[in-house]
C-alpha cells in the first residue's frame, strides 16, 4: 500500500533537484551543458508534477501541484537533504546528480513493476529519462575524475563532500537498493580513478521534514513570486 508521504517524498526529491539544476541556467561551463542541465531539470520537474498530482489525490484535501510547491514551509518538505544542498562547483553538482539519478532509476524500475498502477505508469516514463541523467552525469564524473590533476582533485572533493548525504536515500523500504546502487557507483568511480569515501557520518531527517538551511534559502527564491502574487499566471 503506497502512502501519501512516500509519494510526496519522491515528488519533493524531483522538485528540489529541478530547482537546484535550474540555477545553472546561463551559468554552466559551456552552452551545451547549460542546455543539458536545463533539460534534465525539466525532466525532474515533469516527474515532480505527476507525483504531486497523485499525492494530492491520495491525500484527498484538494491540494494542487502549485499548493505543494509554493505554499508549504520547509518543515513540510519530505525530500532527502542531498537534493537541497547548494550546487557548489560543477563537480559537486555532477556528484549530486549521479548519486540521485542512479537511485531514482533503481527506484523507478522497481515501481514500474509494482502493484500501484498510477505510480507504475509515472515510473515507467521517468525511468527512461533517469537513464539519460545517469549517463550524462557519469560521463562528467569520469571526464573530471580521470582528467587533469586539478579536475581530479575537485571531483574527488565533490564526491567526498556529498557522500554522507547518500545514506538517507536508502532509509526504510529502499534499503535493499543500496547494494545495486553501490555496484553502479563503484563502476563509475573505477573508471574515473576516484576513491569511494568511507561510510561514517550519515545525516538524516529530510523524510521527516528536518532540513538544512540550504532548503530555506531555495524555497525563499522559488516561492517568492507565488506568495507575493497569489494565483499569478502569465
Amino acid at each position, binding site marked *: 500500500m503506497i502512502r501519501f508521504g512516500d509519494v510526496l517524498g519522491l515528488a519533493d526529491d524531483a522538485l528540489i533537484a529541478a530547482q537546484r539544476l535550474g540555477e545553472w541556467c546561463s551559468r554552466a561551463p559551456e552552452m*551545451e*551543458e547549460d*542546455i*543539458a542541465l536545463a*533539460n*534534465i531539470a*525539466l*525532466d*525532474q*520537474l*515533469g*516527474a515532480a*508534477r*505527476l507525483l504531486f498530482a497523485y499525492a494530492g489525490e491520495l491525500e484527498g484535501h484538494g491540494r494542487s501541484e502549485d499548493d505543494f510547491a509554493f505554499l508549504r514551509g520547509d518543515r513540510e518538505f519530505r525530500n532527502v537533504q542531498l537534493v537541497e544542498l547548494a550546487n557548489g562547483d560543477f563537480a559537486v553538482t555532477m556528484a549530486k546528480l549521479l548519486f540521485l539519478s542512479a537511485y531514482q532509476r533503481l527506484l523507478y524500475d522497481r515501481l514500474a513493476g509494482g502493484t500501484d*498502477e498510477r505510480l*507504475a*505508469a*509515472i515510473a*515507467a*516514463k*521517468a525511468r*527512461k*529519462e533517469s*537513464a*539519460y541523467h545517469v*549517463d*550524462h552525469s557519469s560521463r562528467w564524473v569520469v571526464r573530471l575524475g580521470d582528467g587533469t590533476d586539478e579536475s581530479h582533485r575537485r571531483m574527488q572533493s565533490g564526491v567526498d563532500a556529498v557522500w554522507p548525504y547518500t545514506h538517507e536515500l536508502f532509509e526504510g523500504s529502499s534499503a535493499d537498493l543500496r547494494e545495486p546502487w553501490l555496484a553502479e557507483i563503484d563502476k563509475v568511480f573505477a573508471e574515473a580513478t576516484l576513491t569511494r569515501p568511507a561510510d561514517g557520518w550519515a545525516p538524516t531527517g529530510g523524510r521527516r521534514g528536518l532540513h538544512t538551511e540550504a532548503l530555506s534559502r531555495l524555497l525563499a527564491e522559488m516561492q517568492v513570486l507565488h506568495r507575493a502574487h497569489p494565483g499569478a499566471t502569465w
Partner: protein
Amino acid sequence: MVTTAQVVDLVAAVRDPELRVVTIGELGIVRDVAVRDDRVTVTITPTYSGCPAMDMIRSDIEAALHAAGFAEVAVDTVLSPAWSTDWISEPGRRKLAEAGIAPPAAGGHRPVSLSLTVRCPRCGSPDTEELSRFGSTACKSLRRCRACLEPFDAVKTL
C-alpha cells in the same frame, strides 16, 4: 455532420509545436478520440514527463476542434503505456529526416544503448559524432557529421 473518422483526422493533423514537420498523429501521442454529440474528448500521452510543448499541443487541439464546430472539447492525458520513439510512424520518420533531423533508432523500449549509429540526414554517412546529449529540446541531441561536417539534430531514442 462530421464523422468520428473525420474528427480523428482533424486531431491527428495538429502539428507538433517543436517538431513542426510532423503531426501529433505521426508522432504517435494521440491515444483516443471520443465524440458524443458536439462534445469531443481527446486523450494524448506526453513524450517526456516534462515536455513543455504539452500545454501548447492541448490548446492547438482545442482550437482545431472549436474551429470545426465542436463547442465542448476536453483533452485528457494518460501515461500508460509509456510513449517511446517506436510510436513515431514511418511517414513521421521520413519527414523528420527530410527536414534534416535524424529520426530515432527503432527499439526504444530497450535500455538506453550508447553505441547506436546515427546516420547524417543530409549525406547519409554513418560517420557522425555526438556534440551534446541534450539538444535544443529535451527529445533531441546535437550531432555532427564527420563526412559532410554539417551539424544536425537527432531525435533521441527513448
